[in-house]
């Protein structure tokens, strides 16, 4: 259950992202480079509980989608065998990402070694409102 207690807004990112119940990404504080870098570190696949790197990726997409460092990281993940789950997550919200970033994400995901990722990327591309992304799967 969601609890809107104000004290949650002062805690470090890990302490918020580890909670079993939902905490909005906005609760992480201002979208500063420090927060971006902290979140990038928290996306490491070996961090437990594994919801933390997932939620960190999600908050990067929500809060830092225009950031070149984040865009580069997301694109690199499409070929990383340790990160298909994070890529699936990002593909699920591709329509909320800036088009150039979504385009790079879908393009990279179509070439993913993970069948689950490439199939999801194809589905996302086919249904995309952006012509540039649909064109990735249109003959």
């Amino acid at each position: 259950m969601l609890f809107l207690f104000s004290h949650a807004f002062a805690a470090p990112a890990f302490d918020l992202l580890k909670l079993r119940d939902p905490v909005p990404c906005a609760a992480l504080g201002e979208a500063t480079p420090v927060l971006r870098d902290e979140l990038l570190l928290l996306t490491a696949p070996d961090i437990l509980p594994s919801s933390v790197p997932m939620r960190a990726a999600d908050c990067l997409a929500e809060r830092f989608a225009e950031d070149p460092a984040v865009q580069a990281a997301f694109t690199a993940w499409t070929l990383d065998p340790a990160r298909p789950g994070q890529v699936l997550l990002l593909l699920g919200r591709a329509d909320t990402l800036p088009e150039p970033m979504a385009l790079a994400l879908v393009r990279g995901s179509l070439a993913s070694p993970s069948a689950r990722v490439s199939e999801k990327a194809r589905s996302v591309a086919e249904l995309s409102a952006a012509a540039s992304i649909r064109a990735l799967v249109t003959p």
Partner: protein
Amino acid sequence: MIFRLFFLALGASLLACTTGAPSSSETTACDGEIHSETLSLKSDEDGRVTVPVALDGNDDAFMVLTARSTGTVSTDGVVDGEGTPVLDWEDWSTGHESLTNAFFASSDVSVLNWPVRDEDGPLAAGDWTVFASTLDNDGYYKGNQAAEVTVIRRSCSGGTPSIPITIAYAGKLEKDREVTSAVEAAAARWIEIYGEYGVDITVDYVSVDMDGSVPEPLPGADAYTDVYAAIGEGIVVVVGDDVAGNANLYGEAGGIPGPILPSPHSVVAVSWLVHAGPDAAFSDEEIEIFAETMAHESGHFLGLYHPVEDGWTYWDALDDTKKCSSESSCESALSDNLMFPYPVCAARCVEQVALSTGQVGVILNNVGVR
């Protein structure tokens, strides 16, 4: 006019609304019976709805679901058959312990299960009264409003307590063998967790025609009304790729307690993907956490709060869950508790499967457990 904005603000996004039409029914369950009665009532000029609850000597718990189609609704209190108040929302409005979300103003249904704790019972036969309220969207009482109230009484004098669980796959996940294997393994573990405390759960699997990105069980999630209506009892766990289009949560229950009638709040929604983690493949540890999430969120649905909320200044209303007040003391005292607010991990995560006697009592007092 009493102002209820506090509860409105805190609870508006948490609770249920009923769009399905409840109907009278009477079915046999375990050693007792479940009696369900729907009443069309109207609040008085002060916004108070008086709900009669006639208990016989066999009734050991009841649930009152007060619903309306516009404005908001809350539950204010309970008076027993002798005329003695046994629950008053004002006793809980300023403290730091939580008993039930029924006090929170909801967009259109308020769910009270009574007794909540063992110490709130047992119930004596007699003509009890539950008081609910109709409010406007700003939290002020609003009089002369229609309310549809369902009273469910449980008489269950013995046998092994049991909860029917239905796991509903969204987004055609039933065809994904990796996901279904993990869910089945997690469900098996959930059966063990509850079984340790004498609560049997039976699990059925269905698929539902929903997108893989499932909504939170909040007002407007009308698909859940249809899902619950089709299944009709117990706890329904909807498994999707994600909940609400992001990774913000492992899972979410539709209320504390949740309504066991069709409504947008009548499910527990969980994400398989968040549990599987960055590699989208389930380790044994991730299956354990998946099981704990289903058991934890269902614990909310049955009436359990976190023993302590993150922030360490709000607690449940149970005497046997420690009232710690710092991260270190709470992790030391409660990190293995099923209802702890987060998994506690270092190189590995602590198994969170413990329930106190008081917590088990809350589960067993829910009329959904038979």
